[in-house]
């Protein structure tokens, strides 16, 4: 059991770290000052969740790896995040849509995780479910504003939908490890979030006047470490200090 749960926790931790890292790239460069305050908040929530998840994964693994060793000292192919979260920020429309897609998945996921038979998972879920409810509200309001704003913002928002929708399917995919963790009652079944995700997004899209596209060929592979080219650049920044100055305390 410990290996599947370790890997399934890493999937979750990597999702949070990588998306948190992407959002943090905005800090100091946001379109308005209020967003320069809001985006670091969301990044902090996600990095906070990642820290708890890595720490617990390290305990489960039992080989003495701490949050930083797991976050910083793996090779590209060992990261298990879904492809959606590693997508570049592009513009504010992409960034908010990515956040909404992820949060709309994580909210029912953490709600279900409140029933986990694993006490630590329940603890992390209890904190995260509140944070992610706020992310849905914040990102969702922006998607509505931009979708139903100006001609330019509507176009940018619909372009973001077209670009990011192929990465949605992977949110619901169950790796063998995630399945094993779900079968034991430690983590929820990702597939079970589909209806709630679709309802949340449809509700926002109706107000935002956006169309939900049909995706013929979903993009998959993140859970098995098959990432896009952008991921390597993200990791080279993320890991820079740990790689350039190995075995030091900061």
């Amino acid at each position, binding site marked *: 059991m410990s290996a599947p749960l370790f890997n399934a926790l890493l999937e979750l931790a990597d999702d949070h770290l990588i998306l948190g890292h992407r959002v943090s790239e905005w800090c100091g460069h946001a379109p308005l000052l209020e967003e320069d305050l809001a985006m670091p*908040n969301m990044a902090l929530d996600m990095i906070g969740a990642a*820290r708890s998840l890595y720490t617990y994964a390290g305990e489960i693994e039992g080989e003495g790896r701490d949050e930083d060793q797991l976050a910083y000292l793996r090779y590209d192919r060992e990261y298990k995040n879904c492809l959606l979260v590693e997508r570049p920020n592009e513009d504010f429309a992409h960034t908010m849509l990515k956040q909404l897609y992820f949060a709309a998945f994580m909210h029912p996921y953490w709600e279900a995780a409140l029933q986990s038979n694993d006490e630590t998972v329940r603890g992390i879920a209890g904190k995260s479910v509140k944070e992610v409810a706020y992310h849905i509200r914040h990102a969702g309001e922006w998607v509505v*504003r931009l979708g139903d704003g100006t001609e330019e913002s509507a176009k940018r928002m619909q372009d973001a939908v077209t670009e990011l929708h192929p990465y949605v399917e992977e949110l619901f995919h169950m790796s063998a490890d995630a399945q094993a963790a779900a079968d034991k009652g430690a983590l929820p079944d990702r597939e079970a979030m589909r209806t709630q995700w679709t309802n949340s997004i449809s509700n926002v899209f109706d107000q935002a006047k956006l169309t939900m596209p049909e995706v013929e060929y979903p993009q998959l592979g993140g859970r098995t470490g098959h990432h896009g080219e952008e991921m390597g650049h993200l990791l080279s920044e993320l890991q820079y200090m740990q790689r350039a100055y190995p075995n*030091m305390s900061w």
Partner: protein
Amino acid sequence: MYSQGLIGADGATEETEEFLAKFQARIDREEKIEPNDAMPNGYRKTLVRQIGQHAHSEIVGMLPEGNWITRAPSLRRKAALLAKVQDEGGHGLYLYSAAETLGVTREQMTEELLSGKAKYSSIFNYPTPTWADIGTIGWLVDGAAIMNQIPLCRCSYGPYARAMIRVCKEESFHQRQGYEILISLCNGTEEQKQMAQDSINRWWWPALMMFGPHDAESSHSEQSMKWKIKRFSNDELRQKFIDATVPQAEYLGLTVPDPDLKWNPDKNDGKGGYDHGEIDWDEFWRVVKGHGKMNRDRIKDRKKAWDDGAWVREAALAHAEKRAARQTQHAAE
């Protein structure tokens, strides 16, 4: 920083002697001046300029530290740095709001920053090439800012004074956090110690410059002291900062890059203090006038964020108008 905020400030007033005397009497009674109170035009202008420059310093100050968010060496440091830079943005927001109470909009102030008309603290025109700079900025730059800002909690203008109380609490936390980064480095490997020493070598003098020119050259300080916008002179604050900071450097085992620095038991009315070498004022004025290493990059970055974000702000406005129009229509039906 606020001393630099006074460079070139024109406190000229055209009010009657009687009006000015009444206003001065309020100041002398330590009454707080509030947004709707009558005030000399020069007082208003000086504050708009100073609070605006202070706000811009917070906003531009997000950039050199933000430079390390994606490369922070541990998750704990990454989270702390994100929170810190977010705090600086928050300070910018309070300060813009405080300035708005004097009749100037955030948009106007932003345009003045981007056009180069308004200044910000010269310290942020220095680069942050290493992680140690994140520690040094917290320790020295926020440390110097606190020295400047604690007296501003008693500034005669109410909204500014109240904003500064919260700002100072957060800055004090930042200063300790920066110092703690340096403790980790100085307790670490030889490479880490060298990184810390290199950083203090680069930041020490620019941090001293944050207090502004010598009192004799600070042309508008006198009026600001009289109005109790400013409570201590530039040189007094600089000396307090040096006296407080040198022992902290010694504790870290770092060398302050000033060969003329030495303890003088007679200084500060016999309480003792440090004599120090002369600041390179040519460098100071060069950086203030826009020729520091990062001046152009900082404004370019701020301008890019503002320009790239224009469509977002326009969309938010358009959406709010559409929503209001729909509500009016619903109400009419």
